[in-house]
């Protein structure tokens, strides 16, 4: 083999391996999604959404308590996390633009996003569950909000930075104070981007389990009372999948199906909006 042939052969081998690894990535995606789809579809039916659980191990019953609990916890988490995140991002991109403090908070947010969520669960347990004396839905919402805030904050900062500075100068020239410029000009320019960030952050926390285990805990009964233990889809999946009953396993698959589809739709929607708005 000549030198040239050897070089070419090495290239073919290396790049084939790289192609193979991409196929392997796709394989896992198809394998996991396919598995969740197949098992989930089999167990999915209307009673799942409208019935509360049957006694453990018995046929029938549904997961209404978990769906409602998940919605409530995620809703209140967003209610706390979204405003704080958007306002915080506004500070970094506007008032503190170019200052050292903006850079520090921005970097710290990137780190906090990846801090183990179970640690955040133990933290919220110490401040909101232990003093009260029992697990409660609010603690779950706060734990998810803490995970949400740095995500929303960073995307808001990035999206506001994309709004051209000249736009603000034009508004300043008309005599507008900065806060009016931000609210009426900058927010409008970045609205789609911020919304996308919010969607993606909801997708991020909707699948969180670890921080809920010690905060909202779980509940086998339907409850709208946020000051008491509250069921969530993810904690229910954990309980049902590790439980001994076949009916539980089937319902865990169905719940996994619903939550996966919900998150993937949000994620794809977010990407599409970004692509459509910022191409």
């Amino acid at each position, binding site marked *: 083999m000549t030198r040239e042939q050897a070089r070419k052969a090495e290239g073919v081998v290396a790049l084939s391996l790289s192609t193979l690894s991409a196929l392997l990535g796709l394989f896992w995606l198809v394998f996991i999604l396919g598995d969740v789809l197949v098992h989930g579809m089999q167990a999915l039916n209307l009673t799942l959404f409208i019935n509360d659980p049957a006694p453990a191990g018995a046929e029938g019953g549904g997961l209404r308590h978990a769906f409602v609990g998940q919605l409530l916890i995620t809703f209140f988490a967003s209610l706390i996390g979204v405003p704080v995140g958007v306002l915080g991002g506004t*500070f970094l991109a506007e008032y503190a633009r170019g200052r050292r403090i903006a850079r520090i908070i921005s970097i*710290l947010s990137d780190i906090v996003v990846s801090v*183990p969520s179970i*640690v955040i669960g133990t933290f919220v347990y110490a401040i909101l569950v232990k003093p009260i004396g029992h697990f409660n839905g609010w603690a779950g919402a706060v734990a998810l909000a803490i995970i949400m805030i740095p995500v929303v904050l960073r995307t808001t900062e990035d999206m506001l930075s994309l709004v051209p500075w000249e736009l603000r100068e034009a508004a300043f020239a008309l005599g507008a104070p900065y806060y009016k410029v931000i609210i009426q000009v900058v927010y409008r320019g970045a609205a789609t981007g911020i919304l996308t960030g919010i969607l993606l952050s909801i997708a991020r926390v909707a*699948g969180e389990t670890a921080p809920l285990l010690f905060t909202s805990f779980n509940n086998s009964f339907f409850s709208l009372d946020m000051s008491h233990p509250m069921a969530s889809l993810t904690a229910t999946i954990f309980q049902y999948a590790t439980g001994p009953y076949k009916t539980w396993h089937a319902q865990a698959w169905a719940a996994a199906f619903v939550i*996966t589809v919900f*998150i993937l739709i949000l*994620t794809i929607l977010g990407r599409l909006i970004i692509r459509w708005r910022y191409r």
Partner: protein
Amino acid sequence: MAVTVKRNPGDIIFFSITAVAACTVIVFIIGILFVLLKESSLAIQKFGVIQFLTSTEWDPVKETFGALTSIYGTVVTTALSLLIAIPVALGIAIFITEVAPNFLRAPIGIAIELLAAIPSIIYGMWGLFTLSPIMGNTVEPFLKKATASIPLVSVLFQGTPMGIDVLTASVILSIMIIPFTASIARDAFNLTPAVVKESAYALGTTKWEVVKNIVIPYSKLGVFGGILFSLGRALGETMAVAFVLGNNHRIFTSLFDSAATITVTLANEFTEADKDIYLSSLFYLALVLFVMSFVFLAIAKFFLLRAERRYSR
């Protein structure tokens, strides 16, 4: 371009509100550190730092607690999963940036991002119901047979393959961090200036030589940062491993053993801790995990920032 705030009352109010909102992130970090320290003070007093970190005894009945079994489990599963994930992730990044035809780049990029968006509990459940039987019935017996005659390696594959063990947990963990590592590596590769690559092509190099000699050296800081970031994430991953690790506190030698990580210990025992010292020791574990992952993530961020600063001009 920074604007000094005029003394407009509206601005003062809005400035204050946004400043407070931004500072919550700092409050969280200090708050977590402070609260975990306070809650674990009982265990810190009783077991100290060195003894807690080096003791393998985790016995709720005798009320003696040491973190080494959990730390060992965390370190081994993380290392093993990185060992599997890094080559694949780099391969994917090379494929997306250099090999794939243009019309395939976006779809594969999206597919990898979807893999990253799947929540960890889904990975864990899939691991328990689907992957673990496959590992226990097919993959692990094969590995056992294949390595039986190799002296040192066979120790790693001793015992009955059950599928609920360190190996299965590490494989699930690696599938979880592949997309994450791949997307950071892709971003790092993309920072390589096209001009440099084109110059190399003009000299007659092959595509692989461009990747090997130009792209990878150029982006090694970013790739290294990405790997450290994935490591920080893998350390703290809970639900993906909680199903298939067995929560067994001991120093294992075989990959077919059940084990415990810090996260799995917390997930399984936190709500069951009935004594103050037990709960306090669990908080201590959480503190150790927080410090470990924070340090790795901070170092990772440092490398990523340096990579960005150096090449994005």
